[in-house]
């Protein structure tokens, strides 16, 4: 049973995550994104970016492991094994680039229990080294309410 007292809490901000140029290229290749600005620093600079540009969903590579760690390792009481990802939104306050140092803070935004399910909304606020907003992501995660026999 998830602990509703977590709702409204923010977890401690992470240590900075350095966005690797090769990580962006690897992610772009994995999703078949061939835009030159994702692969070639010169093409990215010609388009006005400081370095290669991450595809829109790249932030999952560093936010999802944080979410998994919270749901598996905290005393929140979440049934991670039977969890389903129901909804995902990403707001880019600016593009993510190779060389960015990004800090993520997870907010436990909402928890609803109805029709046999627990529905959890986790918000990730991603900021850069100056504390400027880079991305806001929200994941709606659902798990069955009955305890497994």
């Amino acid at each position, binding site marked *: 049973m998830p602990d509703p007292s977590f709702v409204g809490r923010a977890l401690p901000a992470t240590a900075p995550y350095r966005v690797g140029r090769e990580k962006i290229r690897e992610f772009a290749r994995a*999703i078949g994104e061939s835009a030159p600005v*994702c692969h070639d620093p010169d093409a990215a600079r010609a388009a006005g970016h400081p370095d290669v540009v991450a595809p829109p969903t790249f932030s999952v590579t560093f936010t999802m492991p944080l979410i998994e760690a919270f749901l598996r390792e905290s005393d929140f009481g979440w049934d991670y094994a039977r969890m389903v*990802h129901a909804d995902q939104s990403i*707001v880019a306050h600016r593009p993510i680039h190779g060389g960015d140092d990004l800090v993520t803070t997870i907010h436990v935004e909402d928890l609803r229990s109805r029709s046999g399910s627990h529905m959890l909304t986790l918000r990730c606020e991603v900021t850069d080294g100056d504390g400027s907003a880079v991305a806001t992501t929200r994941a709606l995660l659902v798990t069955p309410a009955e305890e497994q026999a």
Partner: protein
Amino acid sequence: MIRAGDALPPLSLRVTRAALVRYAGASGDFNPIHWSDRVATGVGLPGVIAHGMLTMALAGRLVTQWAGDPGAVRSYGVRFTRPVVVPDDDEGALLELSGTVSEVVDAPDGVRIARVAITARFDGKTVLGRATAEVALPS
């Protein structure tokens, strides 16, 4: 001039088991329902399914190939309504993507934003709900 009602060039993609393995490595999502039939069927799925976030990323390519620069995407959201089942063969699952500009608005910073409604189909059925992206248009 981009207007409401404009259709984006459609995109058809094959999602294979090899693509799932590659995405698992690149994204760090190693949930075995995305690579093990034994685990997938054990939790009641018809077989190995694609990562929802991979389907979302692939559908995003419909928008980025149209926009040219993935950095132009201001927001992107989807609901995962149906799994994409990926067979263990060379063809994989066929994902059919289409999209339409639903409106063009001015953002507070003066940039023109196109709102795009995306449709993603697998096996003739939609797999993403309310899939919407906002893209900054060149001035």
